[in-house]
């Protein structure tokens, strides 16, 4: 039987900056705002800490999507970390697309500590998008 794309629950890895997005996700939780449980959160000091290797490893090891989330531009706890992240991952996003890896699988967002609402809405959208992209086939790839 053909697997229905919409039915399968995707796994998403989220790299969240400690100061804004992690607190934002926390706020969503404490405020009892519901959002899909598909995201596995990894807390990092700053979105600027995230290395393209992290994203790559997630995608290659079978994550259906990767999200990097940080403070809004201008609000970085370290003043400029997210500026660097923005440049770095703009390149990665385009390169993934170029290699034929669905670029919906890699997303970035700015979510502040007060934006529990935004966080919940974001994840709902993200899960929908990644469901449309379908399961990540990287684990089926010949690994020998």
């Amino acid at each position, binding site marked *: 039987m053909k697997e229905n794309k919409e039915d399968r629950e995707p796994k998403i890895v989220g790299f969240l900056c400690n100061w804004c997005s992690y607190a934002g996700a926390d706020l969503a939780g404490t405020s009892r705002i519901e959002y899909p449980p598909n995201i596995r959160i990894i807390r990092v000091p700053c979105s600027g800490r995230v290395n*393209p*290797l992290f994203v*790559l*490893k997630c995608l*290659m090891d079978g994550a259906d999507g990767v999200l990097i989330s940080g403070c809004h*531009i201008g609000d970085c706890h370290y003043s*400029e970390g997210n*500026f*660097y992240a*923005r*440049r*770095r991952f*703009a*390149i*990665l*996003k*385009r*390169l*993934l*697309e*170029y*290699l*034929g*890896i*669905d670029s919906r699988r890699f*997303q*970035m*967002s*700015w979510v502040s500590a007060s934006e529990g609402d935004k966080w919940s809405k*974001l994840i709902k*959208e993200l899960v929908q998008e990644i469901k449309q992209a379908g399961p990540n086939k*990287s684990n089926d*790839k*010949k*690994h*020998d």
Partner: protein
Amino acid sequence: MIDELKIKARELLKNKQVDLIIGYQRASDGVLAMPCFVDREEDVDKLIWDVYCVYNLANYLKDYAGQKIGIIAKPCDVRSIVVLLQENQLRRENVYIIGVECSGVIDEKRLRLGAKDIQESATFGVKCKSCKSSTPSICDYLFKDKEKKGKISEDKDEYESVRKLEVRSSLERLKFWEEEFSRCIRCYACRQVCPMCYCPKCVADQAMPAWFSKGANLKGNLSWNLIRAIHLGGRCIDCGECERVCPVGIPLRELNKKIEKDIKELFKYEAGANVEQKPLLASFDKDDPGDWIK
């Protein structure tokens, strides 16, 4: 022209302006060139300069950190020296750039792939066809091309092949790259030949954490080639060496060119153009495009 070069080299060594000169010499087959390291005046006569001098010698500069090096550099090689200077890998006073005006070098890869004779393969490298300048942007001494051949550039769209690939469907692109990368044998020649790859410990060699498979399998190969390209983002100056040396013929320049094109569009940045400029990923602009971020 070569006599002028030898006189200059001898003078530099005699005056102790440099400890070593990195240049080209004839290879054992009597036709092609190979790198040459001259530290004594009597060896200066080994030096050559012609269309067979394809190598980017800037790659050797990291082997001689702290010494005063004279280096024979084509315009494209000079761009990689510029990046090394931007990234503080090199002190300007330690390198004496003997720039050469270049009208293109041979397509060594095509020769290797069995072009019938040298003449036939003496078509110029693909990188030369989109070369923008036949004169090095910075140098301490410039050897002028007496014949004034100028650049051989065909003034074609240098991103033509990238664009062609971009418009194909996502699945086609994936298939294309998977086919190419499946041949990768992980010899890391692309890394070793690159002047910009100077990390003391490459991520590919790390065991803890191991970022991707060490074996030559598709997943490992995909990761390796992707991360190599990403690490060169904003640093690759398109000397084309990686593609030239790849024994299994992976079109690595198509990756490098793609990033080069993107950063031009996104950040109006060109690698290796200006020593004073900060490296692309070590700087930012408040108005960098962010519309793709949610």
